[in-house]
């Protein structure tokens, strides 16, 4: 007469798993059109957003005050915006169309003269490298893989000091933790879909010319020279130094929208347009360890907290975000503990789209979301 329920491991209740975001603390409004992407700056005081109106805007995270904005393009949406991951610089990388724009947002409180100088050096060093580059490079007669240049004065006056253009619209920018390498993903770019760039050298490489399937997103491993590329169905991990394929994860989703690697490096979450959120323990299997179906519509973004809190979140076209507890234990014998904590509602569905982007604060249990309704929201 054993109740089978009693044999299941007891999950802790959400109340015991605080802190996690529960309420909307702030709404940022001014974008005309869908907000595609949000990024919290390395200091944790500012949020950058990018939208269909071609603008990048910067907001004071805790008050919602708009402190800075710049229109990058008259005819292209800003599809992705992300801060360079270093407290020594204040650089926003944002993509509109085929171009990544690197900006030092002058006038913001974080851009003191020392930070401004360091940021300029990071963006400028590649010009010297390019000028001195030996002409024995392989692609001397080919169209370059990317064009690095100084933009027009109307842009440079406002701090947009460098652009890198590839051949097809960029949907993803993802940084290596040290902030020198970054990758771009252009899903329609075929053999040029995934590019790895070296900022200090203004150099672009295409290591995945023969990728099977259409590239959707990519990410660097948090500590090892490993790179993850997601196509519609699979996620491949590559050893960047040995140039070899390591694993092919098969989440079973029909169309992957987003991935995020756990800060420990052994676990991966995957969001899919077919409404599924999948947790992969990469030590365990190439199949997902957990499948989470909570949303009515497509999942657009997934993100782990990067600052030591056992939290992750997803964002969906149903207008909600779901917050989860996700605790990874070092012990190989023990699986991750996953507990759904909270559904955050507030964004309004618009044109069948809901929440398109999300990011976590680098330290605190706060997240920020980008809505198709033109607003961003901070959740505390």
């Amino acid at each position, binding site marked *: 007469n054993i109740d089978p329920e009693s044999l299941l491991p007891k999950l802790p209740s959400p*109340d015991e798993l*605080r*802190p996690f975001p529960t*309420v*909307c*603390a*702030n*709404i940022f*409004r001014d974008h005309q059109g869908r907000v595609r992407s949000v990024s919290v700056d390395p*200091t*944790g*005081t500012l949020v950058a957003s990018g939208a269909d109106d071609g603008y990048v805007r910067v907001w004071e995270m*805790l*008050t*919602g*005050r708009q*402190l800075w904005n710049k229109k990058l393009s008259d005819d292209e949406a800003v599809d992705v915006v992300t801060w360079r991951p270093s407290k020594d610089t204040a650089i926003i990388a944002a993509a509109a169309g085929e171009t990544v724009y690197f900006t*030092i947002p*002058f*006038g*913001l*409180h*974080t*851009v*003191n*003269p*020392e*930070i*401004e*100088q360091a940021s*300029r050096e990071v963006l400028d060093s590649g010009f010297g490298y390019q000028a001195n580059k030996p002409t024995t490079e392989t692609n001397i007669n080919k169209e370059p893989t990317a064009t690095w240049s100084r933009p027009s004065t109307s842009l440079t*006056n406002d*701090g947009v000091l460098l652009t890198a253009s590839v051949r097809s619209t960029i949907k993803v920018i993802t940084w290596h933790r040290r902030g020198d390498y970054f990758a771009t993903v252009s899903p329609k770019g075929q053999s040029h879909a995934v590019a790895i760039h070296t900022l200090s050298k203004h150099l672009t490489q295409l290591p995945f010319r023969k990728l099977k399937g259409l590239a959707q997103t990519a990410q660097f491993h948090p500590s090892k020279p490993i790179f993850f590329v997601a196509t519609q169905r699979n996620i491949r991990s590559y050893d960047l130094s040995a140039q070899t394929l390591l694993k092919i994860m098969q989440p079973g989703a029909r169309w992957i929208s987003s991935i995020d690697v756990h800060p420990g490096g052994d676990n991966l979450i995957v969001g899919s347009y077919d409404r599924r959120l999948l947790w992969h323990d990469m030590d365990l299997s190439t199949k997902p360890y957990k499948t989470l179906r909570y949303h009515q519509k497509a999942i657009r973004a997934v993100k782990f907290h990067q600052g030591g809190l056992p939290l992750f979140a997803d964002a969906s076209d149903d207008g909600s975000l779901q917050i989860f507890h996700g605790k990874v234990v070092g012990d190989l014998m023990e699986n991750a503990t996953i507990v759904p904590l909270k559904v955050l509602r*507030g964004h309004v569905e618009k044109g069948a789209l809901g929440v398109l982007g999300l990011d976590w604060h680098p*330290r*605190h249990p*706060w997240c920020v979301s980008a809505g198709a309704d033109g607003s961003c*929201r*901070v959740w*505390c």
Partner: protein
Amino acid sequence: MELDAPNESEKTSQVRIKLTTRDSDVQLLETAPILVSTALRRYALSTLVNNLLESEKPVPFEFLINGQFLRTSIDEFLTANGISAERTLTVEYVRALIPPVHISSYEHDDWVSSVNVLATDSRARILSSSYDGLLRIWNTTNTDLLATSPSARDNGHTAAVKAVKWLTEKKIASSGDDRTIRIWNYVEDEGSAAAITPVLELYGHKMTVGDIAIHTPTSQILSASADGRVGLWSTSKTTAPTAPTSLLPTASSSANKRRKLAKADNKQVSQRGPLSMLDGHTDVVSSTIFKHDDPTVGYSASWDHSVRTWDLTTSRLVDTRTTLHPLLSLTEMPQVSLLATGTTARHITLLDPRASSSKVSALTLRGHANAVSSLAVDPKSQFGLLSGSHDGSCRVWDIRSVRSVASGGGGGDGGQVGESVYVIYREGVEGVKQRAVGGEGVKVFGVDWREGVGIVSAGEDKRVQVNRPEGKQ
């Protein structure tokens, strides 16, 4: 249970009460319990206490039983709280707070980040700082704008101002997103126009300076910065050290370009550096104060969850009290030896910074629905506190009004919890928007409370608002 006890209602129609107070000027000489009818309410009890005090001018009192205000008859209170009328009831009387009503508003061009009131025998002035980079001084008798600080082109702040304080009647300190602290002279002579003129620019912080504290007798300033440091500064040109050149605007090519647009005939304002920079916090320092009776001691509150005590003479970190949440605001309640700190988690924590105290939190004040951005103490009561929040309200608290709760439940920290006595919303904002999601449009960023002027609050509605108890006291 004595289920068949006869005439239960008659038996409980009277209750023995012991009247106490912590207000020293209204103490009763006779403290023995007295028998009163359980039908009594606040007003009748207040009359009773005034009779016992033989007051010439009656003082309205409120009554606390087990930390809860009596809002019904004693009988109803006892029933609702399951208290037996058999026992002697301890009833604490406190001076009644009169509901603060809206008196006036001061319209700004942009969000108002902080306010500070000057109240001397001759005049009352409100000083406000704004996201437009300007300071403003207002006459409280007619709400006239008396003076506005110079713009960025004329040696003013080059970004949002976040904090402002009167140093003296003739001197002002301010700080903000341009990472500077600025000292200004203020002249307001009879018959001539009032003017704010820059006298000193203080450099040393690497990120926004969100709060400053002043100590007028020693001409010193404490600053709280997002760079994680607390700065100690002199407001005197002669005693302040030289400015760090790497942080001056001349070290920034973008600022140099901007400065070329400034007026050519501008005189350079003197630039100085900090007396010391206090390292220890690991996140944004949001607020700082001097100890009320000892300017060699400073306190600071940070997003790193801690309140720290500093020896300003030796620049030494003396004590760290770590709470459970990021902290945004800080004030001292000197007579009860407590510090009050406002959190992003929507409550206020009161803590005892004295080394003898082992408890982290003495009391939690709950009720706000968003971050608690600012705090001020009641000028008339050592137990009174004012808070401003991103939820669009200010709340008035009496820390004698508390109840005990178990820890754990509802994510609370347990211990003693207080509720507010009054809530003040933004005037001129419709009822529904007063409780806007995310505090949209109504966030309060700064508060001050001065006798004679009242409760002064500033916010996202581009207004400074004054509320004051009016009518019979």
